[in-house]
């Protein structure tokens, strides 16, 4: 009986530690929503589900000049069907201070996140982490950029295909997403 009790407690503790990692980022994001110096974007899984039902090719040709090629529209539709959520946090006030703060928050937890990319480019520090399931599906991608001008934190959740995300990144105008454009080369 004691063994079962200890085993159950261990399982609860471990699962709460795993969830706590995502919670740490979510908590930080929610805490900064009230902070005037941050800009934020939150897109819920429900909205992504709705948007994934839209005919992207028709949207592009109907509302714009039809810049998307057919295969690009198909890729975007595929990616949207797999995405579960998007969060972006950005500030131009003391960006390196907030960059280090988030790094600190992230490092505190014993994470299942793996560092995919760490680049220093023209004064910008770029880090990308991914959380994968046992079958190697990426279920969360976290991008952190810190530089002299701005700090950006971007979190994508869902079943993420790096190659397709990097193609999508070129067609979306969201702060920080341009850093994902070369991800497919990194995976190789």
């Amino acid at each position, binding site marked *: 009986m004691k063994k079962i009790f200890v085993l159950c407690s261990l399982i609860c503790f471990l699962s709460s530690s795993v969830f706590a990692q995502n919670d740490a980022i979510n908590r930080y994001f929610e805490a900064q929503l009230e902070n005037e110096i941050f800009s934020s974007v939150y897109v819920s899984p429900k909205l992504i589900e709705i948007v994934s039902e839209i005919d992207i090719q028709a949207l592009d*040709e109907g509302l714009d000049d039809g810049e998307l090629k057919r295969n690009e529209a198909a890729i975007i539709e595929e990616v949207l069907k797999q995405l579960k959520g998007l969060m972006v946090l950005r500030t131009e006030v003391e960006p390196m201070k907030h960059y280090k703060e988030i790094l600190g928050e992230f490092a505190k937890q014993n994470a299942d996140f793996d560092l995919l990319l760490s680049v220093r480019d023209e004064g910008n520090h770029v880090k990308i982490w991914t959380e994968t399931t046992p079958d190697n599906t990426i279920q969360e991608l976290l991008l952190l950029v810190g530089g002299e001008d701005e700090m950006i934190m971007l979190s994508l959740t869902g079943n993420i295909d790096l190659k397709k995300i990097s193609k999508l990144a070129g067609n979306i105008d969201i702060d920080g997403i341009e850093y994902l454009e070369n991800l497919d080369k990194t995976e190789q």
Partner: protein
Amino acid sequence: MKKLLYSFILIFCSITIAQAGGDPIKKFYRKYKKKDQVFNITLPGVLTRTCVGIASLFVHDKEARAGLKLARKAKGIRVLVDEGQQVSKAAGKALIRDLRQKGNMEQLVAIKDDGNYTVIMGKINGKKIKKIVVINFSEDQFTMVAIKSRLKMKHINKMLKALQRKSRKEKAKHKKKTVEKKKEPMA
């Protein structure tokens, strides 16, 4: 018999009042609509459908008619714009909380940028968009737009297809003109 009738009337009135009181949008709208520098408009579904019906008599363009068909799906629209700072940030946030808790709505998008805060809440039943509420706060203005609808994604896609067909026709015409100009003999 009289007692039974009065009881029914009382129960009916209580239910109606409870439902009206329970709708956070109606409650909020009623609270602020008559305040100074607050602009408000309510378009009941009947009026929207009637106007669309009349407009469709005069509109023959296929794509415009597709847009009108989409507009017919709106069951009612309420707009509230406050330029007199009557609606505080706290009141706006309380509205969002009430929409979530009492109105069974979920937050679809939240964007905060440069003092502007926009939230879109939605009540989606399967593939049907039953209600959309857009709330925007800025330094000097508060806006709420609430739309009840019977919209489905297939309706939006139908309209997009109609726009796509129009766009392709226009491109084909433009291409034909360009080719014809090139064929004209040089002066």
